[in-house]
């Protein structure tokens, strides 16, 4: 199988996601950012990264997924482009030297705020690794919407202008790249115009999720539903659905879920691996201390002693029913309702990953209603125009499931 070019394979269990938290620093202080412990001090050394790589690559029998995504996050990862370049060179050399099955079945992945995307060192890195790169720039929509949240940490000034100038270069280099948009309470009135704005910038895939934290106000669900309905009208009336995607709308959400056949965990925490500057391993970045408001970091080992597999057992045996309250098990529109294991842990009454946070319940239900509207309207239009069959044949891929 050609893993590198197979989108399904990268999303499913055949690829291992390994994240280097190269820095906990960022130029921005986004108001919705879940990273509550960002700082300028915790920067990964090459020595720590090398130890992590040596540990992982020397255990091919344990890390036996068909492919690997080497993920670099921060803070802002491109602040450490020199380190990342050195890590990636070392990874390539070692995978080759060891004749590792991940050689030529790997990807380097970045989520960046896009501010220094144009800089020489970053561009040189992109040129050098382009065949194996996936880069997502986060832009939240219109200038107004983006600058509501994504502001510089020192001045409080919005970052939109410094990001949007790099979008054409990014799209030229990665024409199929998508962006990730995060919606908090204050953003709801700007959803429609923001998605359309991103389409107008040439971004064809917009992945959106509402924050999992318990910040939603009375009436937010109705406002949200209205925004999604208005967006649905625009997408359908102006036929954006032919070339553009928006993760809000999916044919597969809003159905009851079978308690036996659909009992899988939503989140991949525990199947992923994350390492930070101190050399500690985590089941996902969200379990590092800088991501947690209330709880202690969930450390599963370190680069010197390796992974304590006992600390992964709760993640690898976690299922939907065991962690869900009865109202979620009985929910008539359960499918597509997401959760983040890290947020579940952080919000739980006791230090457990087995208590599902349900703060997004009313927002999911609002999304389901708008989603029903979208598909009913779209399918009727296609049928009336005799294009339903054609649409089904050439249906665009469902956007990625994101966290």
């Amino acid at each position, binding site marked *: 199988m050609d893993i590198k070019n197979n989108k399904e394979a990268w999303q499913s269990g055949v690829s291992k996601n390994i994240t280097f938290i190269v820095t906990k620093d960022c130029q921005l202080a986004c108001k919705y950012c879940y990273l509550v412990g960002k700082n300028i001090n915790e920067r990964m050394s090459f020595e720590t990264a090398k130890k992590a790589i040596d540990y992982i690559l020397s255990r091919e029998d344990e890390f036996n997924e068909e492919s690997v995504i080497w993920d670099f996050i921060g803070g802002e990862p491109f602040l450490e482009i020199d380190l990342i370049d050195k890590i990636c060179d070392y990874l390539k050399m070692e995978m080759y030297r060891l004749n590792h099955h991940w050689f030529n079945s790997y990807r380097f992945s970045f989520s960046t705020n896009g501010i220094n995307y144009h800089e020489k060192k970053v561009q040189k890195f992109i040129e050098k690794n382009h065949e194996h790169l996936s880069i997502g720039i986060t832009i939240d929509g219109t200038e107004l919407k983006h600058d509501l949240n994504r502001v510089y940490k020192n001045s409080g000034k919005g970052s939109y202008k410094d990001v949007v100038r790099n979008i054409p270069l990014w799209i030229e280099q990665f024409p199929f790249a998508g962006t990730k948009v995060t919606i908090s309470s204050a953003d709801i009135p700007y959803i429609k115009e923001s998605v359309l704005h991103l389409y107008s910038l040439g971004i064809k895939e917009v992945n959106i999720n509402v924050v999992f934290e318990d910040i939603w106000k009375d009436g937010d669900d109705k406002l949200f539903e209205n925004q999604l309905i208005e967006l649905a009208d625009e997408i359908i009336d102006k036929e954006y659905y032919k070339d553009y995607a928006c993760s809000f709308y999916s044919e597969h959400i809003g159905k009851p879920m079978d308690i036996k056949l659909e009992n899988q965990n939503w989140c991949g925490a525990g199947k992923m691996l994350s390492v930070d500057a101190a050399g500690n391993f985590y089941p996902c970045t969200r379990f590092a201390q800088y991501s947690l408001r209330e709880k202690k970091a969930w450390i599963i080992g370190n680069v010197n002693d390796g992974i304590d597999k006992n600390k992964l057992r709760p993640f690898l045996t976690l299922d939907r029913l065991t962690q869900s309250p009865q109202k979620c098990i009985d929910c008539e529109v359960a499918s597509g309702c997401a959760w983040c294991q890290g947020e579940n842990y952080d919000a739980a009454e*006791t230090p457990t990953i087995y208590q599902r946070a349900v703060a997004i319940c009313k927002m999911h239900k609002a999304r389901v209603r708008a989603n029903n509207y979208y598909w009913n309207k779209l399918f009727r239009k296609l049928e009336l125009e005799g294009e339903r069959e054609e649409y089904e044949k050439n249906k665009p891929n469902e956007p990625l499931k994101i966290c």
Partner: protein
Amino acid sequence: MLQYLVILLSDKSVPFCHYENKNTGNLLSLNGLKDALRFSMLENLSVQYVFPEGGLPAEYLSVIEEVENVKIMPANSPYADKADVLIFNGLSNLNPIKQGVPYVVRLYREEFFADYEKLIPLFEMTPHLSVVFKDLIKFNENDFDKYKTVLENLSKTIETLYASGKTPQFNLLTDRMYLDKMRNCEAGVKTITLAPDGKFYICPAFYYCGEKDVNPLGIKNPQLYKLDYAPICRRCDAFHCKRCVWLNKLTTLEVNTPSYEQCVTAHIERNAAKSLLAAIRKHGKFLPQMPDIADIDYLDPFDKIKE
């Protein structure tokens, strides 16, 4: 529903399971003890006192008799003749003052492997012998092999005793033979502990290891202490396993998830019980209502879930 209240009379109360106690010697206050007894009567809880080594002030000895109780005592307690359960620390001094009550022997695995034969005389002195490892979480692959061998050896003795009409009870080998469903520790479900600081904890180990106290009538996430919410255990048939929620928390960070070491040791015991049951049945009819213990191809049920 809670049924039992364990009362640690002192920080030095004898440890009776995998944990260690504290040496500070703080006593539960007399008022704390009285409040606990009132609570036990209001909630219909059976009281189990855990005694320290040495004596207790006279007024305590009087107050503790205000409710029906079970007394768990160190084997060298001055009150050992009144004990309902005796706790032995290691294999070096197994001279019980009292026979006919359950014994618990706490020891390290190396001590067990080297001197397990010292346990044999106890089989006929006690209605139930429990061996508890202080270092269960440190078992490694070599230890598992040794453990299997030692249990095979002890099985031969027990088989001989059964063949002669005696029925010694030994937690590592015979408990599983008598069970057709889980019977675990149930701390946090049926049992709650009052510590010398006057607060309630899931079990003594939670107190001694500095975990947070709980409201006994409003334990948070109570379902996680129950079998149905333990994804590995609810599929398991090592019915005799303690399913120790404290060791779970210590090793996997979740009270509902056992460690590899706890699962494998429990399955080595389960398999030894399977062989012992079959061997005893060769001597005649034994537990006819109980089915054979099934053949399995794993020692850690986690492996089955991953499949």
